[in-house]
């Protein structure tokens, strides 16, 4: 840098900075703004298209067809509770599998495992996360049902059933729960663990009474994401739960059943146009909107819950 006299004129020139840097700053800012605006626009467009077609469906549908017998869109029977119940059953079973296994894995990796064990378990978990859901669908159909469920429940269990689908979806979401929860647990400051150990807490007390409560917002977040994933999961259910043509209302998880996503797939595949009653096509959007609302509801509830139980560190 050349030394020049710091006269007012010189200083004014120096302090005014470079116009190129300022325009670069503006361009970057504009790019980021566009990126976020685009994603919001896309979301809005999706919701609008859903609402539009769904409204067409609701206004045309016979109200009685929305709440009786079962889900047979090609015959004009759109019993909503059939597919909502199917979805909740599958998601519930999935969480019974993924909750304990995912949280347990995360707890083990974060609080108990030696580094050498972590190095093996973590990549294995990521491998599990990388298995396409269609593979898990066949795994549920050809292994879980015949080799596991048939042995336990005998002939009560159908070849296609909601339980196998739920377990399959659960396996699919284990890595999700485990990895987000583990991140949350590991983010808890070491000083809190030291405080706990310093008071004579065992590893178990420290994990359960100090680390877990401090990480609870991340833990709940992981479970909510897993539930949303389970509700939205399509392939496993379409393959393993059967009832592709439609389903009677049933809460028996050992029998075939239909979820919202599988119902949509069943309608949309196998043809270049949706066959059936006049408004079968619009019913797809109606179910889509329903899915969207359920997920939104879950997110709002979890947000509230987290804010209440969170131990902020």
């Amino acid at each position, binding site marked *: 840098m050349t030394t020049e006299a710091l006269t007012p004129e010189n200083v004014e020139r120096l302090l005014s900075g470079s116009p190129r840097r300022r325009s670069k700053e503006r361009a970057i800012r504009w790019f980021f703004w566009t990126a976020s605006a685009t994603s919001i626009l896309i979301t809005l467009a999706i919701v609008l298209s859903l609402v539009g077609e769904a409204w067409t469906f609701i206004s045309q549908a016979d109200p009685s067809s929305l709440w009786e017998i079962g889900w047979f869109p090609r015959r004009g029977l759109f019993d909503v509770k059939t597919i909502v119940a199917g979805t909740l059953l599958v998601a519930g079973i999935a969480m019974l599998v993924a909750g304990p296994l995912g949280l347990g894995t995360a707890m083990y990796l974060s609080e108990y495992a030696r580094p050498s064990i972590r190095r093996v378990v973590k990549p294995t978990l990521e491998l599990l996360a990388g298995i396409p859901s269609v593979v898990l669908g066949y795994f549920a159909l050809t292994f879980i049902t015949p080799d596991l469920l048939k042995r336990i429940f005998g002939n009560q269990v159908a070849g296609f059933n909601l339980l196998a689908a739920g377990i399959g979806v659960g396996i699919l979401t284990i890595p999700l729960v485990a990895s987000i929860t583990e991140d949350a647990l590991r983010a808890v400051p070491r000083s809190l663990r030291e405080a*706990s150990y310093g008071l*004579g*807490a065992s590893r178990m007390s420290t994990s359960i009474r100090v680390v877990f409560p401090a990480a609870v917002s991340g833990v709940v977040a992981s479970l909510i994401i897993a539930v949303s994933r389970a509700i939205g999961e399509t392939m496993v259910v379409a393959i393993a739960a059967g009832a592709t043509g439609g389903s009677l209302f049933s809460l028996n998880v050992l029998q075939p059943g239909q979820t919202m996503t599988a119902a949509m797939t069943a309608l949309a595949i196998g043809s270049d146009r949706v066959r059936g009653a006049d408004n079968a096509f619009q019913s797809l959007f109606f179910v889509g909107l329903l899915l969207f609302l359920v997920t939104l509801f879950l997110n709002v509830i979890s947000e509230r819950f987290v804010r209440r139980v969170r131990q902020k560190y």
Partner: protein
Amino acid sequence: METRTQTDKTVDLTKEKVRTPSFDVSSLAGQGDPMLAQNPVMIDVRGLHVYYGDFLAVKNVDMPIRQNEITSLIGPSGCGKSTVLRCFNRMNDLIETARVEGVIEYHGVNLYGDSVDPVEVRRRVGMVFQKPNPFPKPIYDNIAFGPRIAGWNGKMDDLVEESLRRAALWDEVKDKLHESAYALSGGQQQRLCIARAIATSPDVVLMDEPCSALDPIATLKIEELMLDLKKDYTIIIVTHNMQQAARVSDRTAFFSVDVSERGRTGYLVEFARTQDIFTKPEKKQTEDYITGRFG
């Protein structure tokens, strides 16, 4: 006659509490106390070496720590004083590669003996850390944590109050026991950590630079508290602040460090009464360190 003795004692205690914090050799703690030498040894460190992996981090520590005294560990950064402190409650066990050789006898029992459970050690040897680290829970639950996990089933309200009173925090927090500990100031948080440590009724309290994150007024309060607590507890404190060591401690251990290409190995240079360390150190190294800082 008896009443008068009582009164004298009270006056003495008050004096102890208002001791000025400014450094002054004539006010060195423990000076002229004939009882000092008679305090029994509570923790006897003999031939202590600490390794991280196969690297020697601290070598050759011999240090008898006496009951109801404050012992301070001083020395330059990286000299292993915190490492040594963390041997007294087996906190180093939490570091996978840490290994300890030698003997640390607590009431005559080797803390590193085969049958010793580190969890039990930590219930008897409490610890206060460098940065205040209250749990993100209400004040009450912070205090109750230790007793609860130990399965204590007395009246928790009383224990919480007593612990907070003991840590000179009760009056400041008695109306907000169920508010988060994070709402307190740094100094209050550190006194809460002290209250939390003594709630499990340990007989030793370890303090790892307890005032390094605090302002001078909060520091003064903690120091007064330490002097008050030593009636009931044996305190070992690591400090960077030599004036603090001089103000509060009865004995001082001065550590130094050997630097080799493999790393830094700390060792004990001199362990003596605080007044001796600061006024007539035996080793030149000690004298250089002390005068270098004060000169």
